[in-house]
């Protein structure tokens, strides 16, 4: 294809997105669009899969049967969401094996939030309330992103996820209204998860390298800072209802802006965790790789059984 033809296709493509038309897998798309989507969608899928680990840590130790079934259902949903997203990514011409290899070799990233440990039961409450709360704010705009398979997967994910945040908040509410020790446990979890949750929206707009292109492709509909502000504005009143305090002495309602002002985020910590030096990076990846390798005999056995059944069918027919 000549350079002129490509330029022409690009113009048609950009116009389509500007008109809010969706791009489907067999449509022509610029190589950069394909690559960016493979990167973002697979990171999203990896985050769902790795995201099961911090919560899985508490399934066997949930304080009641009610809490246990709810947590199991939530972790099960996350596995499902990872699968929707991997399948949607495969429509762009990359195989599941390649995607797994990128995760397991450390080449691909997943959300840094999952590199923090879950040391008390209250962390399960804080994750549902804050981490899922932040994830929902990030994900709702993706339901109308330009790539059809991604947008459709996100509609399912958002719908199914609506219970995740509520189960977390209910845990926090119970602890906050419990004994002084339980309330302290809830406060401690909020203290540890608050700032990492704010970092989930990514670097500030002036430091974000992908924002401009992603806005153009409607892969992003609001900037990192806008989404972060939205999260803070809606979470502060929720903390007040719990009677817990947000660990930020600069946090203050700004009447003029109509938003909460907040203190500086520790971006050094953010980049340290992104680069692999968070408290649990090594453990998370190792757990994931072990699960994959230790499951190999099960995958092989299923394949061998399928082949045996197929052979038997051929013999019976013959």
């Amino acid at each position, binding site marked *: 294809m000549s350079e002129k033809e490509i330029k022409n296709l690009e113009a048609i493509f950009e116009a389509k997105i500007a008109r809010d038309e969706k791009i489907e897998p067999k449509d022509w798309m610029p190589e950069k669009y394909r690559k960016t989507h493979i990167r973002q969608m697979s990171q999203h899928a990896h985050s769902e899969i790795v995201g099961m680990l911090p919560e899985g840590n508490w399934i066997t130790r949930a304080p009641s049967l009610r809490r246990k079934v709810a947590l199991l259902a939530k972790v099960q949903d996350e596995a499902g969401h990872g699968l929707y997203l991997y399948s949607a990514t495969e429509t762009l011409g990359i195989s599941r094996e390649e995607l797994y290899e990128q995760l397991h070799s450390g080449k691909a990233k997943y959300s840094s939030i999952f590199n923090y440990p879950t040391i008390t039961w209250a962390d399960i409450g804080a994750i549902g309330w804050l981490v899922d709360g932040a994830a929902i704010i990030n994900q709702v705009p993706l339901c109308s992103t330009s790539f059809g398979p991604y947008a459709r997967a996100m509609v399912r994910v958002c719908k199914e996820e609506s219970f995740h945040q509520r189960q977390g908040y209910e845990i926090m509410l119970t602890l906050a209204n419990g004994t002084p020790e339980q309330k302290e446990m809830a406060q401690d979890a909020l203290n540890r998860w608050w700032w990492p949750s704010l970092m989930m929206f990514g670097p500030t707009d002036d430091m974000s390298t992908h924002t401009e292109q992603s806005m153009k492709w409607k892969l992003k509909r609001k900037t990192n800072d806008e989404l972060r502000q939205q999260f803070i504005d809606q979470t502060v009143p929720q903390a007040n*209802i719990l009677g817990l305090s947000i660990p930020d002495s600069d946090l203050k309602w700004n009447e003029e802006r109509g938003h909460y002002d907040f203190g500086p985020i520790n971006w050094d910590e953010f980049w340290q965790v992104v680069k692999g030096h968070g408290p649990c990076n090594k453990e998370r990846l190792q757990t994931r790789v072990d699960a994959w390798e230790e499951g190999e005999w099960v995958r092989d056995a299923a394949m061998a059984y399928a082949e045996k059944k197929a052979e038997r069918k051929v013999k019976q027919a013959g």
Partner: protein
Amino acid sequence: MSENKNNKKNWPLWEVFVRSKNGLEHRHFGSLHAADAEMALENARDVYTRRNEGVSIWVVESKNITASNPKDNGELFEPATDKVYRHPTFYDLPDEVKHM
């Protein structure tokens, strides 16, 4: 492929899925007979999209679809019916909690 008494092969059955516009999933529109996939695609165009009903067509030979049996629905879907905790209404939150 089935054969009739004159030993002649019949055209197999194909299922037709049409995407009515970009952004929407392909939906099952119906089925038709055709000698091969290419003919099935052309016939589907003529049978199901005469009035611009679609922007994309998938055809798949019916025998390649494995369908669940309605008489197994009880045991197949029962596991989902008693899991109320998969729904947001299961969780008790005060009314004043907003955005959740």
